[in-house]
């Protein structure tokens, strides 16, 4: 227990901050993923074959390639790409991107591919009559989507989105390879300096279990809220 004390003697406060960091990265990545899904879901459902192809390449590549490889691409290639763009504007200094930004972007792109599939499935399983009814009632496209399609889509998507959230949460542990101090990295540091890896990695496992458990409770509440009337 001494190992987990708060303050200078133990690792309690460090691990607590690391847990907050894991939560922050997961939420950021999830939101980045949603914005990717907002772009690629319409492409997937589009009438144009070429737009479908773009979205399919995105989801197939991301879901078929290991997360770690994507993270390495961003970690080693991210600052290079940004420096290349900056050099076109005449800025030639070295630019280093923050590990938080690289990490949440890499995980966000991965999570976005899964979210895209979830949203596509949810929209496709909405009854066709709903779209037609909205049209007949004279709703414009904007209102059609926000007032009729979106609420129904959310109800269908939430159970699957909770899986995406779990995957995203667990994927953040991989960002530790870039040096961002989240649960895994902090446990690695603590294990190295106390020579007690068994304790710290097991504790990390407990923290992750706690996070998945608590977030499932929360998501279940949301699920109940959105399925009122069914």
């Amino acid at each position, binding site marked *: 227990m001494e190992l987990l004390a708060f303050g200078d003697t133990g690792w309690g406060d460090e691990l607590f901050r690391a847990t907050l960091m894991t939560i922050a990265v997961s939420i950021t990545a999830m939101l980045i993923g949603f914005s990717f899904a907002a772009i690629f879901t319409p492409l997937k459902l589009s009438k144009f074959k070429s737009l479908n192809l773009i979205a399919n390449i995105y989801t*197939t*590549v991301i*879901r*078929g*390639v*290991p*997360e*770690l*490889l994507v993270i*390495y*691409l961003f970690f*080693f*290639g991210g600052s*290079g790409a940004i420096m290349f763009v900056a050099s076109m504007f005449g800025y030639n200094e070295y630019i280093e991107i923050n590990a938080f930004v690289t990490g949440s972007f890499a995980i966000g792109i991965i999570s976005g591919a899964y979210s895209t599939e979830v949203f596509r499935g949810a929209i496709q399983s909405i009854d066709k009559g709903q779209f037609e009814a909205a049209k007949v009632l004279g709703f414009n496209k904007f209102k059609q989507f926000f007032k009729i399609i979106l609420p129904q889509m959310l109800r269908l998507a939430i159970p699957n989105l909770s899986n995406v959230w*779990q995957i995203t949460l*667990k*994927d953040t*542990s*991989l960002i*530790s*390879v870039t040096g961002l101090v989240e649960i*895994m990295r902090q*446990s*690695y540091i603590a*294990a190295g300096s106390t*020579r*007690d*890896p*068994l304790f710290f*990695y*097991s504790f*990390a*496992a407990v923290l*992750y*279990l706690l996070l*998945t*458990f608590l977030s499932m409770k929360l998501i279940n509440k949301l699920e109940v809220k959105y399925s009122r009337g069914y």
Partner: protein
Amino acid sequence: MISSFPKLLNAAVITLKLLSVSLIVGLFIGLLFAILRLNKNIFINKFAYGYSYVFRGTPLLVQIFIIYFGLGQIEYLRSTFLWVILKEPYWCAIIAFALNTGAYTSEILRSAFQTIKPGIIEAGQSLGISNKIIFYKIQIPIAIRQSLPAYGNEIILMMKGTSLASTVTLMDLTGVAKYIISTTFKPIEVFIVAGGIYLFMTFIIHNVIKFLEKKYSFN
């Protein structure tokens, strides 16, 4: 880009080896725990549920680190024959992968067992077939067929999971890709080649599963 291809291809063999061994072991673990989950004894039942909950609720990276770095810390283990296995990163990775995929497989098989129509089992009973043979010759084959699509996804997820072997010094496809990236500073080219090999393997697995699904479909 082309010069790195043979190296990466060699590394892909290690990835496939890790994948196939852990899948075979994981399938047995999964089957065992799926059967335990269906047991009426509440302790056995809860034990199997706890196993799958813990392994599905924590990242694979934590599991590998506990087995590779953590277990070596126990003095007692170092004196037993287990140490021969546990000091090798290769076997540690396989143990972690097998336990992880075993947890997911047990869930897949459990839900497959539960969706078997009771009428099929009753039909077997009324034909006078013993319960043991009903289980092995009727329930298991149907469950395997039912779980093929989900299991195909699990194989692909596991293939991606083997990339974590690179964190415990194994030079699998991702490990070699990272090494080449950090020595040549050509992340995009290496990503395209290594990612292409992974995608090719995904493609093959996907089609084999699809073929099996078709072959063993009911109609």
